[in-house]
């Protein structure tokens, strides 16, 4: 065990001793910090006014004060419609509520009719039904059909909708938690690239530098060293990911405030059926990001041993895990393929991932994509570890 700890320490030294590690980590760290700094320093045209993002949000917060803490119901929505036709100043408190919630669930009907009753009529919603929630149900029904859900899946979600505790929603200002939540997407992309650069040579270098001959003929060079390398890679992943996540979430909450942590995420993504507050969504996304980082690390280390070439491993990881999911979308018609593809961590932590209604069948019911993803990642970590170990133990130092 003492040898194991020593080996882990030296493997960490190998990772941290490389300039590329510090360059990659530095770039990712500074990018995340810069995101926050830009928001408070760079002035741009926001809604027709020259201001920083921070100033614009502070103004929005001030504007929204009259409706914060109010129930999102027909009375509030009617006020919003009325203000819309009155003046720009009168509409200011309702801007986000109207644009992000009402327009999202009602679509063009909200704008074209210009009234609560007109919108209800256009959408075929009964007078005694609450517009936002009834329109939301219709929107969700239509999205479920678009996503090719089975009748069982639809029934599952209908039951969830019937039992939503958060409905009716209470309006809150949520820009701080929302920004922190949204940063998870940028963070996970940056972390994947950073880990590929920092870890791809951990096994490959032994072969490329021909040190494998020395380590593999030593007593602990096979089994123990494999686990020591893996542990060092995982420790580096946890610590670096933790730091990157902290610089992603903390500045957003400091700059924009932590108000709205307890608000349901539906205030920003009304069609989502994931029952979480913004605080829970941040926690979920960041925990999943850490698990996903471990998945990336295990895959990178596995590729590092399989390819025995760090450049090939880096290209494979960045190409398959980062660029591909960002550029390609598998149509919903290809149900299984699409669902597997969308289990990619980048899609799971992204806000649009919370609009994925497809379920994963398990004995006795279903798991949502948010529930299934971390379990699948943990399983894949084990699979990649086993594949990597098998390749490492079987490796023979052949002709060079």
């Amino acid at each position, binding site marked *: 065990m*003492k*040898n194991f700890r*020593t*080996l882990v320490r*030296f493997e960490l*030294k*190998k990772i941290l*001793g*490389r300039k590329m590690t510090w360059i990659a980590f530095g770039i990712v760290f500074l990018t995340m910090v810069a995101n926050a700094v830009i928001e408070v320093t760079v002035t741009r045209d926001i809604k027709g006014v020259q201001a920083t993002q921070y100033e614009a949000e502070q103004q929005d917060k001030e504007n929204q004060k009259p409706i914060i803490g109010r129930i999102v119901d027909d009375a509030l929505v009617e006020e919003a419609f009325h203000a819309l036709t009155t003046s720009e100043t009168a509409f200011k408190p309702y801007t986000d509520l109207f644009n992000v919630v009402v327009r999202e669930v009602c679509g063009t009907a909200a704008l074209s009719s210009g009234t609560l009753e007109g919108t209800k009529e256009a959408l075929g919603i009964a007078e005694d039904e609450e517009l936002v929630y009834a329109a939301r149900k219709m929107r969700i029904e239509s999205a479920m059909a678009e996503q090719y859900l089975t009748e069982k899946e639809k029934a599952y979600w209908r039951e969830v909708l019937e039992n939503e505790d958060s409905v009716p929603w209470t309006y809150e200002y949520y820009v701080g938690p929302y920004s922190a939540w949204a940063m998870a997407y940028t963070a996970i992309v940056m972390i994947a690239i950073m880990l590929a650069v920092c870890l791809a040579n951990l096994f490959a270098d032994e072969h*490329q*530098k*021909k*040190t*494998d*001959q*020395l*380590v*593999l*003929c*030593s*007593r*602990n*060079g*096979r*089994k123990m*060293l494999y686990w020591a390398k893996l542990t060092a890679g995982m420790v580096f992943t946890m610590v670096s990911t933790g730091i990157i996540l902290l610089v992603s979430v903390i500045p957003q909450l400091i700059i924009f405030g932590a108000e709205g942590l307890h608000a349901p995420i539906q205030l920003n993504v009304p069609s989502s059926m994931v029952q979480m507050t913004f605080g829970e969504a941040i926690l979920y996304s960041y925990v999943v990001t850490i698990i996903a980082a471990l998945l990336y690390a295990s895959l990178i280390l596995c590729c590092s041993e399989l390819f025995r070439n760090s450049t090939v491993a880096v290209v494979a990881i960045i190409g398959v895990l980062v660029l591909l999911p960002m550029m390609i979308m598998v149509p919903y018609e290809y149900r299984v393929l699409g669902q597997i593809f969308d289990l990619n961590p980048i899609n799971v932590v992204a806000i649009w991932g919370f609009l994925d209604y497809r379920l994963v069948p398990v004995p006795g019911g279903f798991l949502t994509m948010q529930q299934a993803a971390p379990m699948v990642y943990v399983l894949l970590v084990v699979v990649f570890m086993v594949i990597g170990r098998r390749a490492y133990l079987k490796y*023979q*130092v*052949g*002709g*060079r």
Partner: protein
Amino acid sequence: MELMIDRVTKRYENKIAVDRISLKLHKGVYGLLGANGAGKTTLMRIICGILKPTEGTITLDGMDVSEENYRARLGYLPQDFGYYPEFSGLDFLMYMAALKGLSKEQAKRKSAELLKLVAMEDVAKKKIKTYSGGMKQRIGIAQALLNDPEVLILDEPTAGLDPKERVRFRNLIAELGKDCIVLLSTHIVSDIEHIADEVLMMKDGQLIYQGVWEEDNGDLEKFYLSQYEEEGE
């Protein structure tokens, strides 16, 4: 102590690198001679357990080459190998000591002892990337000796050393041969003549000579070169 190499063959798609070699090695220095491509390095890798033979077995006192305990009794200096540039000489030895299963105290003591032996105490804390070729070779020799091996495999150990160092290491190897099995491969025939108790000569994967080289046999270098000439004819 007996290292038994029993009908070991390594066959690649269109080449036989090692062809049915059988040897019984006991304490002493064995000098392995052979031209490039004769199969020396392949045989050494097989003995070190880093390359599986197509056929045959290697055992040390009945212990198979694939066992951890076999590797615990082994020291290996490859012909061409790399280092960790971010490590100092001392780091490298401490790392190799952990790989060889030495405790921290043993590792510290042995590293200090071996750094002195290879005359590198003053540069122990300098990064390996700053070392000359000869210094790298010396630190390589030191790592092979960390675990007081019973089987020491040295592939071209004196390559890159200056003449003075070469003589010093030749003597060191001869000394080590009193307590362990040393298999030494080199192109420098005089090294073998001076220290080898037995000469092994390989050609095209086969062992073409094995035995003590007596003065009566004539000049070893001439005999060795004659093998090339035959090949060239």
